[in-house]
């Protein structure tokens, strides 16, 4: 059952540190990766670059976001993928016509586990039965020729989503097919998806894709990497997430990536979320510049609603949460919002649930952005300062640990608990930290573990937590954190104590 032996970047290994993989090594790695499945042969980098260059601006993820920023618009980035090429074409055309200029290409679970023979069977069955027998688009089995048909079928720019195992080969096929973005994030793998992989292994996998993007960039084709960071499982101040986004950005930049898109997790507190939407790209820019990656573009920002919390299971509450997130994202002037569907708490969303969700989201986005509302108040300012101070302190500690090498630093920082996040899935994470909300719903630390948060900021958190403790006359501990974790699904920001 353990698949640690199968690595998506093939059998050839490189040394994992903050250093560009050298050309020769990279080409050897590519050979190994492309040999994982016959469609790998369809990838011809030179021809792919020509193909990419022949495409108009609306097919380039980076350029589309830059245009959205210019126009002051916010759009939804949905999740979608279906097994057969013809169905996928219909799906992406429908979404594009519904006003979605940026599209994902979500792969299926077999692809994610590199089980390509099973995909073949399932495709056969899908064709025969007329029903989708896979939960996504098997991009590797379909290969470049077929996937180009999908890409060319509508005016959107594409961004595939897949697993760590399949990341490298999916990227090869996707970019050769005209897709122009993909996550190079390694912290989500570590924190949320992969139980036993070390951070070093996760970074290693990620560097391949970044290097591939870098190769395209060298030839003048800008492919965007979206940066997710370590996802907070539950109520937790966002500074670790932001710091790890920046680490991922630096790692991508070193491999030659020229466009990075930070994905900011919105946790429900308006001032904190708007602060994060503003501070994240600002600090990312600062650190990129500091290390000389001045030519790396940050085309915009995406406000995310990754399922951090249990989602409301009633349709009313679900729409409340979805629209609220869009409201905050649009007020924060993010170019993209990524809400979950209203069926999030129930199961895999139906097509209707998808469509209704995006219509509600677009309603809010349009109506809010038209108004160009100025959002500034003391709280946003305070939260911005606190976030900036925390992220800076964390990053400096990481750099120190790595002696200036951000990769080495990150690996050591995880071992030392200098990077830590609650409820991690990975056995190598420390899991010594915890967050709760304060009495106005802002996320605060209650257990700092070994996080390098400056003392005066710790005091700030403690005071806020104490305020709520006094107000509610109970301790803010693990149990309170769990109550807060459930709150959003019950239409509240603050958890009520269980009887």
């Amino acid at each position, binding site marked *: 059952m353990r698949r640690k032996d199968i690595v998506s970047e093939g059998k050839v290994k490189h040394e994992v540190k903050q250093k560009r993989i050298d050309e020769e090594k990279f080409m050897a790695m590519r050979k190994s990766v492309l040999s994982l499945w016959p469609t790998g042969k369809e990838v011809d980098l030179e021809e792919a670059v020509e193909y990419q260059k022949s495409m108009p601006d609306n097919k380039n993820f980076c350029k589309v976001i830059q245009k959205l920023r210019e126009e002051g618009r916010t759009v939804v980035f949905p999740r979608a993928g279906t097994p057969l090429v013809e169905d996928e074409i219909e799906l992406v055309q429908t979404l594009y016509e519904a006003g979605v200029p940026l599209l994902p290409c979500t792969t299926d*679970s077999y692809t994610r586990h590199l089980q390509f023979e099973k995909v073949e069977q399932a495709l056969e069955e899908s064709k025969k039965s007329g029903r989708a027998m896979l939960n996504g688009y098997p991009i590797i089995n379909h290969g470049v020729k077929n996937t180009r048909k999908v890409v060319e079928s509508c005016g959107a720019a594409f961004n595939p989503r897949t697993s760590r195992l399949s990341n490298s080969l999916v990227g090869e096929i996707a970019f050769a097919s005209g897709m122009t973005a993909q996550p190079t994030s390694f912290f989500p793998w570590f924190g949320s998806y*992969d*139980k036993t992989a070390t951070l070093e292994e996760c970074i290693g996998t990620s560097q391949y894709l970044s290097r591939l993007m870098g190769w395209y960039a060298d030839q003048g084709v800008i492919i965007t990497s979206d940066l997710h960071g370590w996802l907070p*499982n539950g109520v937790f101040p966002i500074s670790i997430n932001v710091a790890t986004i920046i680490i991922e950005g630096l790692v991508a930049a070193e491999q030659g990536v020229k466009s990075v898109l930070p994905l900011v997790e919105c946790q429900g507190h308006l001032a904190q979320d708007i602060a994060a939407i503003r501070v994240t790209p600002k600090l990312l820019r600062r650190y990129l510049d500091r290390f000389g990656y001045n030519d790396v573009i940050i085309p915009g920002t995406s406000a995310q609603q990754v399922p951090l919390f249990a989602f409301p299971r009633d349709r009313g509450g679900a729409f409340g949460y979805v629209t609220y997130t869009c409201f905050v994202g649009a007020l924060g002037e993010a170019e993209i919002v990524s809400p979950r569907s209203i*069926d999030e708490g129930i199961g*895999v969303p139906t097509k209707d649930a998808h469509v209704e969700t995006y219509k509600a989201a677009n309603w809010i986005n349009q109506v809010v952005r038209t108004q160009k509302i100025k959002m500034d108040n003391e709280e946003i300012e305070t939260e911005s300062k606190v976030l900036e101070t925390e992220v800076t302190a964390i990053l400096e500690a990481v750099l120190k640990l790595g002696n200036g090498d951000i990769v080495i630093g990150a690996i050591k920082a995880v071992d030392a608990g200098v990077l830590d996040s609650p*409820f991690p899935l990975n056995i190598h994470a420390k899991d010594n930290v915890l967050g709760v909300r304060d009495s106005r719903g802002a996320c605060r630390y209650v257990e700092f573990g070994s996080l390098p948060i400056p003392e005066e900021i710790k005091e700030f958190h403690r005071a806020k937590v104490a305020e709520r403790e006094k107000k509610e006359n109970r301790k803010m501990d693990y149990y309170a954190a*769990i109550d807060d*974790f459930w709150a959003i699904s019950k239409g509240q920001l603050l958890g009520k104590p269980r009887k």
Partner: protein
Amino acid sequence: MKENPTVITGTVGVDAHVIGTKVLSRALRDAGFNVVELGALTPPEEFIKAAQETDADAILMSSLYGMAEIDVRGFKEKCLEAGLEDIVLYIGGILGVSRHKFADDVAKFKELGFDRVYPPEADLDAAIEDLRTDLKAKGKL
């Protein structure tokens, strides 16, 4: 008859949703159980191995990603083969894909050999009460 019965927890198959099983494990520990916490992404065989090694009284499995049915087919039979005929088997989480009736899950997983089946957002105190009842009935508490 034990004072601190031993129970095994974890999410089965390639399900990575670890939060629920972590919360459940802590609640069981708080309630005085001896908890062997296997965490997420645990193959069915590992549950059995752990149960054998620790002489466990119950397995509380979680699954949220909708594919539990496939993961636990034949699990009861393997328990029997492994000599765990007496072990209490619970499962909880989101046990099917898309909108569906929880009652169908209950029927399906009881058929598959589970003693009790829990819906999302299940009340853990009530579940622990159930566990005590079932363990008492089997003379294990």
